[in-house]
């Protein structure tokens, strides 16, 4: 057995865990959402909007959308780290990804709490 002392800031573990936790949140929400849509008597504006009006559904949907952003961040970070060799370009793409995803989260909040 290799007795290795793990050093460093452990960013990797946080990202690894965040990816899995967000994955579980999204998987559960997706299943619940599909069942709820299939249970609608018919799909029109009123019933569709009605899906998102209960407070807990808004809460869950927000967690789902937030999980998407976190999950996308970890995944895109992996892609940039694996394929973009130039440090400057990689940093630019990573910062751009974060700004984009944070902006999208703001939009998601606005959409949900306006309903």
């Amino acid at each position, binding site marked *: 057995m290799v007795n290795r002392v793990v050093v460093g800031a452990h960013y990797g573990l946080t990202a690894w865990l965040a990816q*899995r936790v967000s*994955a*579980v949140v999204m*998987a559960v929400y*997706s299943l619940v959402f599909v069942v709820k849509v299939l249970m609608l008597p018919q799909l*029109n*504006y009123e019933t*569709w*909007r009605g899906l*998102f009006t209960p407070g807990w559904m808004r809460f869950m949907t927000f967690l789902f959308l937030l999980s*998407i*952003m976190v999950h*996308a961040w970890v*995944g*895109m970070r*992996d*892609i940039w780290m694996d394929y973009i060799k130039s440090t400057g370009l990689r940093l630019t793409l990573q910062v751009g990804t974060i700004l984009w*995803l944070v902006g*999208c989260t703001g*939009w*998601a909040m606005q*959409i949900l709490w*306006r*309903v």
Partner: protein
Amino acid sequence: MPELTVRKPRPIWYNINLLNLPVPGIVSIFHRISGLLLTLAIIGLLYCLDGSLKSEVDFGQIRGGLSHPLVKLVALGFMWSFLHHFCAGIRFLFLDLGKGINLSSARATAYAVFIVSGLLTLILGVKIW
């Protein structure tokens, strides 16, 4: 200094063609590609959610837009990405827990990911057409 041991020529395998990967490897690279596509789809998802919840008129417009055959095809492509990513992701979560680690079950579940996500996409495609 003379070579004391005869160096055995090692096999060189430069071909990293996608189709030369074993099935679990193909699932893995498709997981990455579908993840990239889904990241691009976030904006479309928010756009549709925004419009569909704004007003009855906007809802109708989004619905009308989504019924265009070309849009349906693109949406189905993203749905396939989602379903593949979903199935492969669940497989990876089980692998993390140490389930299905041995070669035969890892291959079987990799095939299952393609079959299940493909079938679900097919059903969805038939349903929306």
